[in-house]
């Protein structure tokens, strides 16, 4: 197949094929467990068949052959005997090989299958003995009942179908545009003949085929996708004609997920694109609302002007200047008309805006629902993994999946698949003991492994629990001591705290890392994935009895309510679902325990930490008697966190900041507020992780530097640089603001640009030096003005140092400020 075309169709094929693999794998295991349920076999075989067809249409011969051999292996199924273990194992191997080919394809490599021949011969050896099979041959009828009306498809039916398949192959083969449109015309001609002859029960499918043909002419990728979908439909149609068994309508539409939910395939990127557009619509709406309010403001000032004119008129009446009075009265009448026009405009604008907001909100809800998928897509692949691993290790495991119907965010399902797989492999490989150990402990021979998806209001819990030997706390303790993770008194650490150490990057006890549970990849990867999604992981272990991993995540990542706060002068947001409540703390609620601050909320005494301290920023001391605090709760962890100010609540559509911010676990992403400002969304799980046992966060406060510059980037760069050097930094956008802040805060040093709107740097320096309270505050000018005259003017205005932006070295600037701040403090 043309590589360009393959690349276009690949994402769709890959998603579809994975679902098909999940259906086949899940079905096989259920069949193995319940041999009598022959009804399970049919969807499995049909799915394998569709996979074969899709692979063939893309020219993926290896996948096609494997899928075909799978079908063959299943043909030997005898309901009385059940599915033999070797059939299951050989099939699972084949599925895994196909999965690997898909992974390669996703990465842009050729989707090849390694070790194809051994896999094929393994499948052949377990299939019905000596039954010669041809590609595309009619599968043997599976079960005697229900008595399927054996229909031998008449040649008149199959002939147009085959012609169509040939034409389609021509269409997909690399060819010039003329060749393609000729092939398209042929396909369109054939579909007419096909429709005429279809029996009623397959007619809907045939109609869909016809619809697909209509879409073939679409330009670019859409056309290629239509061709691929059509190829799949043709395979299905052929099978239906050949087998004559009408499957239940749900399954007939498409071999979808096993739970039979009708699903629609939408590329995740399409969905994201839609979400972004909706976000912009909503943002536009908010701006519009502000403009409407501005119109209202104009109206008010027009009224005020009229009021004053009226007064003037009154005064004139007394003096009797008739001509002027008449002119003013005319102007006044005009103004009155204008004002009422403005008012009705504002009123209409407002009602339009309300209607639009409502529409937008509905749209957003729809989109959010679209993003949700059943947890089954994440859980089902676990069956195969567990079966494969327990087979390999000879350790029987009974897997229970709970909550497969809970709907979660699609991205959550995608990103949790690997961490979950890791946890489950870990449980089978290390959690559950060998049979003889279990017998000695009086446990049933098969280990019990449960994976539960538990709705928890705005969040969702993912619980992986095994009834194995529990964590080896002694090994963890000694390993932690070895790595210097527990300080001087490893004995003082509680078991729970000790258990959590296994999430530390690079941490592993000898018994924890093997090829089985992830080729040396530790649990830190699980922690990282979960943290990135705004969640938290916890582990509980009962020695000899069980290990339980609890992943707590937000239900949806697309849009959610957030609490807006101000911290150290910056805006920040926290997901509302992690804020149990907002409380006001009075002096009586506070307590200082020997190991840090705490506060009482209801009956609980919780650690109390300032948000600024958790973020490594310098906190301003509370100035009011009542201090607002957020009660953060993620999983079992709770703490009171105090921002400088709580600003309110807003719905946010949060965008990820991408891979460059992977090293900043406190930030989940950023969002644009109604008023166009941007806000960083903090990760509550990470904040809680930073809360020490009882709220103490040591943070020596450095000298305060006031930075005045009208360029946002320079303020930002300077703030970052100086904060890192240990200063507390306050920024001002111009000289006027700098003067206000200087008077209020009395900084240790002022760093200022020279050219700023309103009050410039020279005037700022002069006014600071003229103020008796601020006279001793050193002023450093950092500017792009290089001339000797400019330098002289700066120093004359009172600057203690004058640096040129282009040439200043950052280290030198920091050293200079340290020196000046130190001198000022003495």
């Amino acid at each position, binding site marked *: 197949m043309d590589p360009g075309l393959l690349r276009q169709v690949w994402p769709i094929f890959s998603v579809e094929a994975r679902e098909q693999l999940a259906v086949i794998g899940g079905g096989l295991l259920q069949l193995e467990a319940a041999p009598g349920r022959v009804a399970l076999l049919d969807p499995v075989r049909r799915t394998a068949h569709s996979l074969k067809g899709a692979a063939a249409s893309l020219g993926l011969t290896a996948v096609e052959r494997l899928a075909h051999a799978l079908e063959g292996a299943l043909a030997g199924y005898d309901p009385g005997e059940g599915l033999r273990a070797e059939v299951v194992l050989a099939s699972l191997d084949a599925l895994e090989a196909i999965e690997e080919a898909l992974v390669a394809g996703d990465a842009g490599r050729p989707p090849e299958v390694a070790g194809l021949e051994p896999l094929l011969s393994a499948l052949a050896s377990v299939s019905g003995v000596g039954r010669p099979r041809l590609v595309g041959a009619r599968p043997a009828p599976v079960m005697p009942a229900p008595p399927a009306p054996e229909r031998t498809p008449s040649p008149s039916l199959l002939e147009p179908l085959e012609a169509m398949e040939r034409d389609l192959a021509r269409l997909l083969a690399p060819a010039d545009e003329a060749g393609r449109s000729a092939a398209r015309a042929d396909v369109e001609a054939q579909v007419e003949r096909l429709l005429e002859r279809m029996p009623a029960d397959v007619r809907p499918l045939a109609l869909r085929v016809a619809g697909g043909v209509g879409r073939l002419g679409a330009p670019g990728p859409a056309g290629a996708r239509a061709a691929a979908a059509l190829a799949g439909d043709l395979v299905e149609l052929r099978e239906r004609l050949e087998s004559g068994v009408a499957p239940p309508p749900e399954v007939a539409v498409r071999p979808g997920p096993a739970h039979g*939910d009708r699903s629609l395939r939408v590329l995740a990127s399409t969905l994201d694109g839609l979400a*972004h*557009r*909706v976000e*912009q*619509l909503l943002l*536009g*709406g908010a701006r*519009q609302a502000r403009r409407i309010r501005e119109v209202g403001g104009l109206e008010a000032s027009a009224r005020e002007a009229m009021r004053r004119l009226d007064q003037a008129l009154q005064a004139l009446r007394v003096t009797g200047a008739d001509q002027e009075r008449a002119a003013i009265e005319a102007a006044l009448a005009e103004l009155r008309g204008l004002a009422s026009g403005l008012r009705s405009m504002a009123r209409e604008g407002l009602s*339009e805006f309300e209607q*639009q907001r409502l*529409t937008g909100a509905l*749209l957003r809800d*729809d989109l*959010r*629902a679209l993003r*949700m998928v059943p947890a089954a897509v994440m859980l089902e692949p676990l069956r195969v993994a567990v079966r494969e691993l327990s087979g390999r290790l000879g350790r029987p495991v009974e897997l229970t999946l709970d909550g497969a*119907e*809970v*709907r979660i965010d699609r991205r959550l399902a995608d990103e949790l698949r690997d961490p979950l797989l890791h946890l489950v492999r870990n449980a089978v490989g290390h959690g559950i003991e060998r049979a003889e150990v279990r017998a000695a402990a009086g446990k049933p021979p098969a280990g019990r492994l449960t994976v539960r998806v538990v709705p928890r209001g705005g969040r969702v819990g993912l619980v992986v629990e095994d009834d194995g030997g529990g964590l080896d706390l002694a090994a963890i303790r000694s390993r932690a001591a070895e790595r210097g993770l527990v300080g001087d008194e490893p004995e003082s650490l509680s078991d729970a705290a000790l258990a959590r150490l296994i999430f530390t990057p690079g941490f592993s006890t000898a018994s924890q890392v093997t090829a089985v549970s992830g080729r040396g990849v530790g649990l830190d990867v699980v922690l990282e994935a979960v943290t990135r999604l705004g969640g938290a992981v916890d582990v509980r272990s009962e020695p000899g009895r069980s290990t339980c991993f609890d992943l707590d995540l937000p239900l949806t990542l697309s849009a959610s309510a957030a609490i807006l706060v101000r*911290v*150290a002068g*910056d*805006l920040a947001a926290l997901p509302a679902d992690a804020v149990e409540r907002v409380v006001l703390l009075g002096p009586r609620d506070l307590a200082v325990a020997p190991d840090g601050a705490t506060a009482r909320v209801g009956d609980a005494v919780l650690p109390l930490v300032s948000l600024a301290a958790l*973020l490594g920023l310098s906190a301003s001391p509370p100035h009011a008697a009542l201090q607002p605090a957020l009660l953060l709760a993620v999983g079992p962890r709770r703490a009171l966190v105090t921002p400088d100010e709580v600003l309110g609540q807003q719905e946010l559509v949060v*965008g990820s*900041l*991408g*891979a*460059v*911010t*992977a*090293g*900043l676990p*406190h930030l989940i*992403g*950023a969002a*644009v507020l109604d008023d166009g400002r*941007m*806000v*960083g969304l*903090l990760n509550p799980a990470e904040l809680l992780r930073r809360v020490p046992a009882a709220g103490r966060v040591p943070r020596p406060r450095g000298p305060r530097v006031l930075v005045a510059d009208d*360029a*946002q*980037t*320079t303020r*930002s*760069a300077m*703030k*970052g*640089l100086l904060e890192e050097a240990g200063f507390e930094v306050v920024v001002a956008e111009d000289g006027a603001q700098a003067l206000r802040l200087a008077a209020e805060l009395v900084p240790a040093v002022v760093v200022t640009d020279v050219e700023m709107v309103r009050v410039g740097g020279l005037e700022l320096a002069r006014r600071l030096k003229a103020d008796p309270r601020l006279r001793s505050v050193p002023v450093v000018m950092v500017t*792009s003005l290089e001339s000797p005259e400019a330098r002289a003017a700066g120093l004359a205005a009172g600057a203690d140092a004058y640096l040129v*932006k*282009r*040439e*200043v*070295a*950052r*280290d030198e*600037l920091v050293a200079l400020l340290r020196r000046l701040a130190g001198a000022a403090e003495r």
Partner: protein
Amino acid sequence: MPDGPAPPVDFDELQRRLDEVEAQLGEAPRGGDRRRALMAERARALAAPREAVSEDALPLLVFTLGGVSHAVEVEAVVQVLEARGLQRLVATPPWLLGALVARGRVVPVLDLRRRLGLARGLGDLGKVLVVEHDGELVGIAVEGLEGRRDVARRTLSEAASPLRWRGADGLAVLELSALLAPRGLG
């Protein structure tokens, strides 16, 4: 939402609502947007492949950082924006200046001066190059834009990461994959 199957999605209805909202919003060009559109257009013009470029020429976008000329391959640049739209984010390290919105996405904006070993220069970062890397958009704040330059490949010599090449005149061409690697920025 967690229980029961999701209601079927009516795409026609969805489309209708989108159209409705769009119509209600109407066309409302604002100063900032117009300027941004202009900039975007200019960036596109800069990035447009020229007709008769010899095989050997490598189109670069040249800019100033730390007072020195640097360049990236034009191909990687999606958009050039005014730095004025930039906004600080809470508790960020010095290399992360903040973020701005480009193409409807929130894009982090980086100050690469220290990462590039430029100890001197705190010039105002007036422009942001939005580059695409690994499917993600990242903004690189620069002091100024010098423009597009086609440089003959044979005049470029390999340079140590995070640079990719050095031009004959000392022009430093950045290696984005090294600069934007996660954890490569601290």
